[in-house]
């Protein structure tokens, strides 16, 4: 946030001249462009490696897919995505509006508590609810007791293992991807416009529909697309809940039929579709600009709700937290407690928690730095090449993580082997596999996979800063780099912190690339959890799952503090 005594730029119009950006004539400019290309090159390499795999060909794959797989898989995938998309948009935007436009008892806790489901991986929420809602679980047991039945053979409720179940469960943990950016938008962007509308006599409902919602559209689009890509990447929860999505087909093609080229072909086809959809959304709002003056807004004055209305608001806002976080977390805690009483806390768990935290922290730092670089290069030099590079940098998020991991493997192992053979030729020593052996390959995998999150969030943050600030900085003799440090970073630190949280939590939960690329004798909480779950020792798994949730809480708390501090300035 800008401090109040900073000189205010005159409020610019909602459009900027086409000649936006710096000319990269100075040295500083060229470095930004080169870095941007280098970073997107890093993301592109594994995709190219997959393309190379795909070109090796797969006999009869597509005729088989077209006849037997695609009709069902596509309809399942579309239903799942549509359902999750609508639900996360409604929950995320609704909650963001609720805690921004209204004030009620418990609102300040709710503001950050609504982020908590982020720390629960989709496969864990699926597993927890399957257990809770199974005919043998506590819920159905209670229902039977109340209705006077002795055995589940006499009475049971419909199975949670269904498309509806999958849509609801995934949405319950993915809505924060929407809530986070939309709330930031409401707080900074919408506030003054909303105040003006209200002064003009518009009702709160109309303000939401006609001002706040249209303004929040880029944020909703970013949030929903992140949530949908998480959905598309999900294998664990889908498998648990019996949804046969395209991603499951990719997996089957690769693992059951040992047809990696085929799996790569399906993934790349999916990638093309995703990119087309995202481009369409951007094209559809190409004429809109979302920046206003970044001048210090008046605090959005929420309406005070008392008594019954306040209780209802709190109840509504708390529902996603209870269902998406408290229920699975309490379930895990109970399971973990049984285990803990039985075996205590193993040393390995502490080591794994440390590994997880360090790895995620280092990766988050790198992902943020690269994301800021790319988003800023695209803002400062919005030329076709740079803008394409910016899009390319987000490709890694749009394909199944298992498949991307193979692409990374090919690239990193190739590099490792080249270093090893070069060292042997020149110095007569073997270096072994440097990047895979040191765990650096994991950092690369997280970068390639999650760069989209940081580029997207930072870009959204920058989009709220008027171009006139860039112009003013230039007039005052600031270079490209100086403008970033003194204008863009301070003005968008909320968006950057939010991106950091999302990336950190995602790195921590990441499973497929971590399993495939980690060095010998190296475990994270997620891989430990997976191994225990694969063995069916669910109580051990619960302990690791709880630890993931707890480690994931740290950045959520941190972000909440950053948010509060920003509120106070």
């Amino acid at each position: 946030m800008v401090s109040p005594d900073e000189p205010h730029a005159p409020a610019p119009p909602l459009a900027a001249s086409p000649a936006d950006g710096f000319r990269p004539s100075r040295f500083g400019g060229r470095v930004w462009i080169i870095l941007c290309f280098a970073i997107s090159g890093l993301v592109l390499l594994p995709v190219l490696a997959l393309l190379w795999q795909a070109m090796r060909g797969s006999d009869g794959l597509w005729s088989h897919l077209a006849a037997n797989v695609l009709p069902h898989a596509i309809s399942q995938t579309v239903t799942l995505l549509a359902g999750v998309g609508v639900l996360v948009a409604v929950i995320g935007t609704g909650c963001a509006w609720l805690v921004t436009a209204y004030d009620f008892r418990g609102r300040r806790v709710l503001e950050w508590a609504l982020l908590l489901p982020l720390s629960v991986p989709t496969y864990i929420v699926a597993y927890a609810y399957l257990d809770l809602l199974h005919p043998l679980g506590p819920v159905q047991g209670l229902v039977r007791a109340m209705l006077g039945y002795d055995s589940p053979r006499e009475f049971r409720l419909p199975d949670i293992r269904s498309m509806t179940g999958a849509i609801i469960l995934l949405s319950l943990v993915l809505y924060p991807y929407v809530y986070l950016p939309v709330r930031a938008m409401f707080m900074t962007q919408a506030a003054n416009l909303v105040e003006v509308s209200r002064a003009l006599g518009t009702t709160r409902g109309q303000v939401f529909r006609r001002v706040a919602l249209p303004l929040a559209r880029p944020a909703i689009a970013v949030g929903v697309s992140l949530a949908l890509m998480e959905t598309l990447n999900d294998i664990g929860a889908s498998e648990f809940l019996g949804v046969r999505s395209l991603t499951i087909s990719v997996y089957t093609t690769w693992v059951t039929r040992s047809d990696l080229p085929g799996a790569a072909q399906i993934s790349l086809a999916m990638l093309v579709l995703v990119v087309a959809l995202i481009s369409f959304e951007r094209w559809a709002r190409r004429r809109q600009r979302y920046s206003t003056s970044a001048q210090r807004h008046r605090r959005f004055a929420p309406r005070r709700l008392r008594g019954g209305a306040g209780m209802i608001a709190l109840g509504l806002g708390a529902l996603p937290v209870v269902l998406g976080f408290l229920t699975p977390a309490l379930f895990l805690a109970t399971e973990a407690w049984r285990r803990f009483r039985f075996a205590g806390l193993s040393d390995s768990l502490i080591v794994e928690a440390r590994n997880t935290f360090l790895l995620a922290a280092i990766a988050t730092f790198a992902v943020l730095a690269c994301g800021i670089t790319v988003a800023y290069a695209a803002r400062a030099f919005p030329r076709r090449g740079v803008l394409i590079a910016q899009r390319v940098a987000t490709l890694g998020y749009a394909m199944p993580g298992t498949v991307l991991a193979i692409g990374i493997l090919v690239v990193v192992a190739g590099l490792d082997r080249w270093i090893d053979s070069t060292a042997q030729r020149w110095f007569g020593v073997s270096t072994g596999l440097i990047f895979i052996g040191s765990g650096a390959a994991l950092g690369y995998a997280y970068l390639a996979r999650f760069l989209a999150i940081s580029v997207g969030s930072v870009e959204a943050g920058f989009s709220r800063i008027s171009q006139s600030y860039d112009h003013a900085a230039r007039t005052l003799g600031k270079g490209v780099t100086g403008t970033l440090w003194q204008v863009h970073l301070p003005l968008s630190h909320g968006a950057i912190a939010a991106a950091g949280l999302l990336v950190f939590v995602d790195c921590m939960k990441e499973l497929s690339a971590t399993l495939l690329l980690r060095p010998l004798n190296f475990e994270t909480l997620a891989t430990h959890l997976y191994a225990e779950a694969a063995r069916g020792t669910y109580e051990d798994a619960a302990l690791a799952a709880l630890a993931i949730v707890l480690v994931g809480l740290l950045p959520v708390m941190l972000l909440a503090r950053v948010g509060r501090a920003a509120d106070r300035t």
Partner: protein
Amino acid sequence: MTQSTHLTRAILAGAAMIAGAGAVSADELNLYTSREPGLIEPLLAAFTEATGTTVNTVFLKDGMAERVAAEGEASPADVLMAVDVGNMVDLVEKGLTQPVESEVLAAAIPENLRDPGNQWFALSTRARVVYAARDLELQAITYEELADPKWKGRLCIRSGQHPYNTGLFSAYMAHHGAEATETWLQGVKANLARQAGGGDRDGARDILGGICDIAVANSYYVGRMVSGDGGDEQKAWGDAIKVILPTFEGGGTHVNISGAAVAKNAPNRDEAVALLEFLVSDEAQKIYAEANYEHPVKAGVPLDPIVAGFGNMTVDSVPLTEIVTYRKQASELVDKVGFDN
């Protein structure tokens, strides 16, 4: 600036590794496994105690073959361990293994449970059996009968694309041909009480939960549930079922394997062979039987009492190497009949 710092770091890391690798490699062994680490830990601990060789492990679920292939000659992998004969054959076909001529292995492992070219070796076997509700009047069943309409709405099974099931379906194909297998799969699909999915243990759990009466699952899970190793909850699942050893008409019970191979570029080949030989010793085979509830490959090593209680098993006579050849076709049939949908 940053680029060069990265490079320096990489070089330093490399130097550290060289130093590390040179000092201790003689007493080390690197194991890539897609078997759960918890299951093989007792075996590895026993090996280390017997030989003094430390075992470094990485548990890879999918993509073990891809990783070893990508690492090429620089791969640190010595031993590759996996379940399902298809996975073992895959490793061989991708040229990632090397032959091991060992009298110890040849003497301990029956000929049909190792690669004719000595590229892979089975270390334990497991049967694909039927769990039935304890009070159900059922003494025997054939795999063919799983498609009998009398089981309509009463059968649970995991995804048809899981290797344990594609293995079974491939065996069916070896017995009856593709067309009959397709009809059979349609029949089994029509009998499902719920969508195919979950794990093998969910079969027992859903029988207790009243969702189904019979389930198709692997034999060793029963031992893990009934013994209480998996907790009280799972013990209740295990106690709710009895095990029936199904057979093919005119054949026996379908079994699959867990196995291991020595990696083609194994830096510690001697230790790798030593581990394989240790794993077929009486001591290790006993652990396979008692801790994992699998069937030992070595004759004379007794079964765990829980597993022995299933009755005498006649192993189906179709060789594993033949079953493997039908795997892709079986997987495509699963898609074709919409088994998992």
